[in-house]
């Protein structure tokens, strides 16, 4: 795991009262942004060549199952993550979340479950799914959080943001045609804490994992020779998508920062008008009125900023992590192919153990075919989901912006109205 630094607290950072950076009419050069956040990449080191024992059906039948299913509207499982609680033991303090499941699926013993899980448990689940399905796309988890050495895990905002992300994670798993029927997933949702701990201890032992890792590294070093065109195109897309979505994330964070600074200044306007009204007679009423209007607009702006931070940024953030997941998935696929190519070469050159080698080669070929098909259909699926997610996130943002301006509009129109009735009452001003 890379020890990267993530600063989730969006500070108004380096902008002092002095003249801000010149962005008049120009495109921001975001790469020079000092407040740039580095995302930790939580990619597990599982490779493609380990064949998880929890796979129960043959590769052939699995291929059929991986064809994208269109009937996603009939949802038969509902998962929620809420109610964070802090636990203190002698060794550590940690947070658990309540995970509630309601389902009509027959493979579940009951229709309702309630368990408590901590972040580690989610990590475990993700790892298991990736191990079992190296070329399927697992939705990212929120990152671990370390701020310059100080662990801010118990900050309320952070916990809430994480809770929402964990909720989305489980729902994405539940909506996935393959993952949702994973045994590990079922255990995660239903097992009592003790059961889960013992289940976690199963699975491929340390030594076998070590062996797999060595093989993976070897395959990676060797590289793939004849990558099919569609996967090369996929890689190019992922590269570009990763850049774009990262840019959008940065732009949105910048907008939030600028709006917060605007809010700080705006907060001083209202009181200044109010102060002025104290020196005036005739003007006192309109000045107080304006002060009130400015204050109300401040509140709306504050809410607007909060919405942006709570709704749009987390989604963009997740898709930045998705891009990294996609890159990892493509790498794993490449490794499976590299392994197959190596075995093919070996069979061609070596004379001894031909039967075992032929066996190995067949298995490797199956694995490759399976991996490729899995990736292809999950890729289509992922694109649809991404499109829906991002579309609704941006539509939501636009709607909130409209609502913000509508509220401010109403505030100022009420001021005009009050001045109008005042003026007409005194027979003073003609508004035509």
């Amino acid at each position, binding site marked *: 795991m890379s020890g990267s630094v993530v600063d989730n607290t969006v500070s108004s950072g380096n902008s002092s*009262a002095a003249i801000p950076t010149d962005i008049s009419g120009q495109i921001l050069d*975001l790469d020079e942004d000092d407040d740039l956040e580095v995302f930790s990449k939580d990619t597990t080191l599982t490779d493609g060549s380990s064949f998880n024992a929890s796979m129960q059906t043959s590769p052939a039948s699995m291929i059929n199952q991986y064809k994208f299913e269109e009937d996603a509207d009939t949802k038969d499982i509902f998962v929620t993550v809420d109610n964070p609680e802090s636990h203190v033991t002698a060794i550590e303090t940690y947070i658990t979340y309540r995970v509630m499941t309601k389902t009509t699926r027959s493979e579940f013993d009951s229709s309702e479950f309630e368990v408590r899980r901590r972040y580690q448990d989610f990590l475990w689940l993700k790892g298991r799914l990736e191990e079992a399905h190296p070329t399927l796309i697992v939705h990212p988890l929120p990152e671990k959080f370390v701020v310059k050495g100080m662990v801010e895990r118990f900050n309320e905002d952070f916990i809430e943001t994480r809770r929402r992300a964990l909720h989305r994670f489980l729902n994405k798993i539940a909506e996935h045609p393959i993952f949702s029927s994973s045994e590990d997933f079922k255990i995660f949702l239903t097992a009592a804490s003790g059961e889960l701990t013992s289940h976690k201890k199963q699975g491929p032992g340390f030594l076998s994992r070590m062996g797999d890792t060595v093989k993976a590294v070897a395959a990676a070093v060797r590289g793939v020779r004849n990558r099919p065109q569609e996967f090369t195109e996929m890689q190019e897309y992922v590269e570009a998508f990763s850049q774009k979505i990262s840019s959008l994330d940065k*732009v949105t964070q910048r907008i939030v920062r600028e709006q917060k600074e605007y809010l700080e200044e705006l907060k001083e306007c209202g009181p200044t008008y109010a102060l002025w009204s104290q020196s005036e007679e005739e003007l006192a009423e309109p000045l107080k009125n304006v002060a009130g209007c400015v204050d109300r607009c401040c509140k709306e702006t504050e809410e607007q900023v909060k919405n942006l931070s709570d709704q749009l940024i987390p989604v963009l953030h997740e898709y930045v992590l998705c891009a990294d997941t996609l890159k990892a998935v493509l790498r794993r696929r490449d490794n499976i192919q590299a392994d197959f190519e190596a075995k093919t070469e070996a069979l061609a050159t070596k004379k001894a153990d031909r039967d075992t080698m032929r066996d190995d080669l067949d298995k490797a070929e199956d694995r490759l075919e399976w991996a490729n098909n899995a990736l292809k259909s999950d890729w289509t699926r992922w694109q649809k989901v991404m499109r829906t997610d991002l*579309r609704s996130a941006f539509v939501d943002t636009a709607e909130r912006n409209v609502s913000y301006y509508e509220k401010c509009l109403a505030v100022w129109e009420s001021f005009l109205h009050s001045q109008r009735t005042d003026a007409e009452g005194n027979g003073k001003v003609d508004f035509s």
Partner: protein
Amino acid sequence: MLACDYLVCTQASFPFCSLFVIHKYDTTNLTPGIIYNIWDTSLLKKMEISVAEAEKRTGKNAVNMQETYTVYLIETRPVDAASEGTNPALDSLWRRYSEFELLRNYLLVTYPFAVVPPLPEKRAEFVWHKLSADNMDPDFVERRRVGLENFLLRVASHPVLSSDKIFYLFLTEENGWKETVFETGFQAKADSRLKALNATFRVKNPDKRFAEMKHYGDELQSVISQLLRVRARAADRLYGVYKVHGNYGRVFSEWSAIEKEMGDGLQSAGHHMDAYAASVDDILEEEEHYADQLKEYLFYADALRYMCRKHELTQYELEMAVQDLTSKKQQQEELATGTIRTFSLKGMTSKLFGQETPEQREAKLKMLETQIEEGEEQVKERNAECDEFVKSAWVDIERFKEQKDHDLRESLISYAIMQISMCKKGIQVWNNAKECFNKM
């Protein structure tokens, strides 16, 4: 429009004015004893005035160095109600800012009881990031042009100032105007007045109303300065918020290139984000006009304070004259009765070295009598001066108050209208963007 009053011109006001203006020309067409309806003499009834253009000029200045400066075109046209159909000729001349300053200084000295309209600022202040502080910047020049026109219109609609001949010549005589102004000798009075005003003096019985007015002037200046500062900083930040959205435009456009179904929606949404980012320029330009309106009253506050100070000076001079008279009368009494109530070196020496001769005493008494006569005249004059000042000043202050209340209320309303317009633009852009996003 403006409240108007009848200015009662009595014999008293003209000696008062004549203290400051040496009439080479008959600068007033007002004769004492007649009551005038101010509107009849308001210059705006007779002519249209505008500052139409600004131009750069280069020339040699007083120290024979090359300099660049801006001149403003003042256009006037007589308003002749009878000839509605015909288009009367437009008179025009060029003036630079320093000439406006000269005019204003002349008015300040000549009409001390008037709240003289202020000029637009000499240097750009309360600027926020994008605004230029450069006097040659076209936007600054344009805003100054508007401010100068406003100044002329204010003077032209002032019940007293609009009848001033020097003002009229400023609008109509390009050449020789400066010499004419200097010939009025106002500069000398200005200098002595300035020195007096800058000195510290204490008034024994300050007029409560003027003290309150001065306090109000202080508060107004302080609060408007604060408001302008805060507003400028907020404008700066708002600019940043809008401009960053321009990046959405760029990234959406780049992203749309790699997407199939989402491409069109993204691309068109990007255009709306660009439009949003661009819209802030107009929004803030309009707000700058609002800031200029506030600035005018910031400077008016200064004029108010200046006037209160002038009143204090007249009051002080009256008190000094009274004090002087009292002391002279006392001396007279002492000399006449032979009792010394006040200490004086002369008194002491005469006590020590013997009394003065009856002739000497007689001479002294006679001198004192003349001095007392003069002193009483002086006190009467200064009393009248004070009264006149207070009366006229208070008339103008009331006029100014009504103007200020009306104007600033209008400004606040126009500010609200600007905010509404900004909100409407925002609603439109984001609704458009939403439609595009829906097509993603």
